[in-house]
């Protein structure tokens, strides 16, 4: 089922209405390629979906356990697929903490702090010469609070002119809980929980969590939390009605119990079968209420819910916010719904959740330090295995011509880093943070040995990407009476990055992505219609990669979405809403985008490029990656998009072009006031030389229609003013307004 609302509307209509819509939208989620899998799309690379029981603490960018080419690394991080509940979590036996004795360097003296790197020896920590460590082939992992991925680093032009990458400061401010998405200081006590948006917390922020949580004893009843698969929640009005209905049912059953002369509801159901269904519902409701009380207890204990502002027993605004913060803090893929994975995370002691967060953060740092992208997900690019047989493992040819499995380098590097720092358990991490004051994280690097890189690595890898659209439906998603029609998909869209090596296409990663579908759009007659937004098929190239890209809202964007209230210098005025335009993690293009261009050779031999408005980009709308549709673009989780394009820049010939001027201005009227939207630049551009090939495969067309409908389609249930002139189609398409489909 698609969710036919534009991204912003979707946040209101789909997310806030809760689990039901999302569950429908995501039912049938499958792995990157291959057989249906109702759980997490294995190899997704990002954290798993709600309800899979494995959301929290998924090692970002690591794949599933099926036919794992390099399962050792994953297995060593206990519980990568399911974090479990209250048990201890850490490195598996056999991975002794501390650096390999052969890699230990002598303690350095008299060097500047910036040159030092940390190593853990059997007798304790030591500061060593980072340059010497580098000479010995060790990786220097940036653990400082100033860390930002490579795509956000400043550049220099060919003539040496500095090219400031302005989003870097915002990224660092967000990661450190210092500022908001505009770069303005947070108010006291305010926190950014932006890991799911591609901005992991800094080590200082995690340090603070560990130290605070070490003092907490939440004492929640895990049995009560795990007695339910989830807790139904409603909006304010519905909740009142629903709780009244439950209360009424309880009273009726109590009366029936009294009349029947039985001691319990179970006995009542056994004695009078007509009450069986009601008793079942009542017991479920009782369990949910008991679990709800534990959720409240946990949220209060973690300092996320202020009991003075919350009405016990009610899923009110403060509790909804607290739940959302808990989920985003712990990397749980849900938006305030009390899902099973949320409840499971609440059974774990806070320190265990902190340890899982640390592991995810270190996975990102390790991936960027190692310049690697392989996360074990490449297995999903292989054809599905016959029933009962393991899936074929992706391989590459080594110098001897042997087939070698594509390794999970991110998983291995994370393991090496954690082992090198002596972080086996939550208690180790707590001790580490107690040893190191916050000031240490101003400049902190760890010197560790990463696994050797495969032979296909180099400064100019022969990379290419492929997007498989999976199952594609062009039919209208509803019938003549407006009833929604099912459009099941067994294969979902996938993104695969390959390297051409010794005559073979070797998959490095395979992640879930999105394609276009039926979306609502404001037409030229000022009325809203459905329109099929197609993802172009065929060979294209990435010539430009844009860090912190700006999305230009088409003229058809509803104006209401372009205004918001915001806390500004002591007041809450109306302001232009730049969230979706960016630059920023909430931008419709996410934190980074690769522009798809068609490349042709002119008669004179020169190359011509044309941009059809499609991008592969990060996305704030992380739930959309579970099976919803885009406006034609190919979305990735923000952290994976950042990782992917940082990898591409590191392993292809590329140059920084810097911020590109835009000078966009849109002046509009809204509710008696004038708003002036100004976007001075397009983002920080990089140019790949040569461009990187990317091909979108057609997928499998399902249903009757074999080609997409081009025109507007009336939305069932809406009344249209037919006196207005008919909406204009693409004939008068203005380049800016219709380009860029997020």
């Amino acid at each position, binding site marked *: 089922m698609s969710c036919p609302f534009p991204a912003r509307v979707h946040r209101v209509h789909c997310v806030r209405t809760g689990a039901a819509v999302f569950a429908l939208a995501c039912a049938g989620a499958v792995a990157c390629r291959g057989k249906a899998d109702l759980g997490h799309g294995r190899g997704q690379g990002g954290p798993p979906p709600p309800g899979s029981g494995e959301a929290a603490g998924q090692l970002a960018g690591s794949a599933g356990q099926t036919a794992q080419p390099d399962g050792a690394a994953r297995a060593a991080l206990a519980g990568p697929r399911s974090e479990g509940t209250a048990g201890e979590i850490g490195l598996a036996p056999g991975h002794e903490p501390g650096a390999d004795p052969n890699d230990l360097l002598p303690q350095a003296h008299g060097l500047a702090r910036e040159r030092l790197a940390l190593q853990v020896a059997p007798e304790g920590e030591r500061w060593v010469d980072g340059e010497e460590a580098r000479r010995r082939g060790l990786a220097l992992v940036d653990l400082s609070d100033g860390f930002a991925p490579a795509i956000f680093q400043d550049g220099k032009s060919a003539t040496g002119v500095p090219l400031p990458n302005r989003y870097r400061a915002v990224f660092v401010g967000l990661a450190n809980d210092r500022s908001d998405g505009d770069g303005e200081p947070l108010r006291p006590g305010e926190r950014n929980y932006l890991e799911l948006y591609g901005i992991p917390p800094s080590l200082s922020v995690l340090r603070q969590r560990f130290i605070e949580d070490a003092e907490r004893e939440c004492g929640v009843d895990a049995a009560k939390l795990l007695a339910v698969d989830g807790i139904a929640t409603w909006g304010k009005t519905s909740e009142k009605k629903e709780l009244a209905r439950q209360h009424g049912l309880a009273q009726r059953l109590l009366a029936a119990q009294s009349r029947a002369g039985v001691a319990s509801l179970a006995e009542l159901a056994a004695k009078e079968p007509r009450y069986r269904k009601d008793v079942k519902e009542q017991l479920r409701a009782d369990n949910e209420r008991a679990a709800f009380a534990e959720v409240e207890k946990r949220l209060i204990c973690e300092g996320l819910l202020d009991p003075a502002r919350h009405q016990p027993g009610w899923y009110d605004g403060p509790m909804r916010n607290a739940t959302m913060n808990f989920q985003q803090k712990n990397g749980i893929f849900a938006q305030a719904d009390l899902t099973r994975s949320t409840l499971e995370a609440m059974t774990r002691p806070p320190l265990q959740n902190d340890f899982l967060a640390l592991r995810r953060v270190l996975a990102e740092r390790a991936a960027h330090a190692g310049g690697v992208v392989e996360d074990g997900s490449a297995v999903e690019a292989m054809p599905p295995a016959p029933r009962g047989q393991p899936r074929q493992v992706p391989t590459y040819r080594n110098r001897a011509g042997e087939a070698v499995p594509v390794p999970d380098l991110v998983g291995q590097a994370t393991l090496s880093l954690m082992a090198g720092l002596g972080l086996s358990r939550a208690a180790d991490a707590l001790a580490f943070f107690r040893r190191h004051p916050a000031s240490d994280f101003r400049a902190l690097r760890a010197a560790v040995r990463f696994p050797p890189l495969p032979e296909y690595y180099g400064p100019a890898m022969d990379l290419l990407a492929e997007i498989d659209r999976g199952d594609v439906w062009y039919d209208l998603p509803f019938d003549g009476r407006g009833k929604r029609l099912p459009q099941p998909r067994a294969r979902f869209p996938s993104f695969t990055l390959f390297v051409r090596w010794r005559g073979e296409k070797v998959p490095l990663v395979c992640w879930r992505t999105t394609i276009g579908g039926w979306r609502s759009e404001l037409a030229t007659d000022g009325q809203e219609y459905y329109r099929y937004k197609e993802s172009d098929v065929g060979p294209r190239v990435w010539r430009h990669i844009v860090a912190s890209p700006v999305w230009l809202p088409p003229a058809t964007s509803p104006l209401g979405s372009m205004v918001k209230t915001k806390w*500004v210098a002591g007041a809450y005025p109306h302001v232009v809403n730049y969230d979706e335009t960016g630059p920023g993690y909430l931008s419709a293009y996410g934190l980074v985008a690769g522009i798809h261009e068609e490349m042709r050779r002119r008669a004179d031999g020169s190359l011509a490029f044309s941009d059809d408005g499609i991008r592969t980009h990060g996305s704030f709308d992380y739930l959309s990656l579970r099976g919803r549709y885009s406006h034609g673009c190919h979305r990735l989780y923000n952290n994976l998009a950042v990782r992917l394009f940082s990898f591409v820049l590191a392993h292809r010939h590329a140059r920084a072009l810097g911020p590109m001027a835009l000078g966009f201005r849109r002046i509009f009227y809204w509710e008696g006031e004038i708003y002036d939207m100004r976007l001075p630049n397009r983002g920080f551009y990089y140019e790949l030389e040569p461009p990187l090939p990317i091909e979108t495969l057609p997928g499998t067309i399902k249903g009757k229609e074999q080609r997409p409908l081009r025109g507007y389609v009336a939305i069932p249930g809406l009344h249209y003013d037919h006196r207005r002139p008919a909406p204009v189609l693409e004939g008068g398409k203005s380049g800016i307004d219709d380009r860029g489909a997020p």
Partner: protein
Amino acid sequence: MRWTRRGVSSAIHRAVGSTRSGRGYARLVLLLIVLAGTRAPAALRASLSAASDGKLEPETPEANPYSADVTLRLTVTPALKAVVMWGGKTLAQLAPGRMEADIVRPRGSGPLDLEIRADGYLPYHTRLYTDRDNRDGNADKVTVRMYRDEDACGLLGYRRGGTPGGMMK
């Protein structure tokens, strides 16, 4: 610059406002003269430039992209008494003869979402960016034209006494 039909039409609406009054017609004639010439007005140029094409044009480099402070410039037309608000704070008082405000802010301290208020004019919201400096000629500066209600009818989304939109549910 490539002028699109829709862009020009919308720019005319924005720049001229209502053509029902004689003043509107006069402005339209003036605008057409300018359009026919080689240069368009700066604000119009800015509003149309983004609509022109996807060609990349690097930003003019700043003399010192790492300066501690930046100077932003806000210019308001026409000449009138106006107050520039930044959230709950008054940033500047403007008056005829003094319609420019130079605002010095720490570099990268977040954008300034400003509201300009003047008697008889609609409140105007705009934004200035603190991540670039103006002193060497490289933005950020903005010129704002205040609108009376009767001038705003050509603006995108204008609804007299109502809310914009158009979709009927």
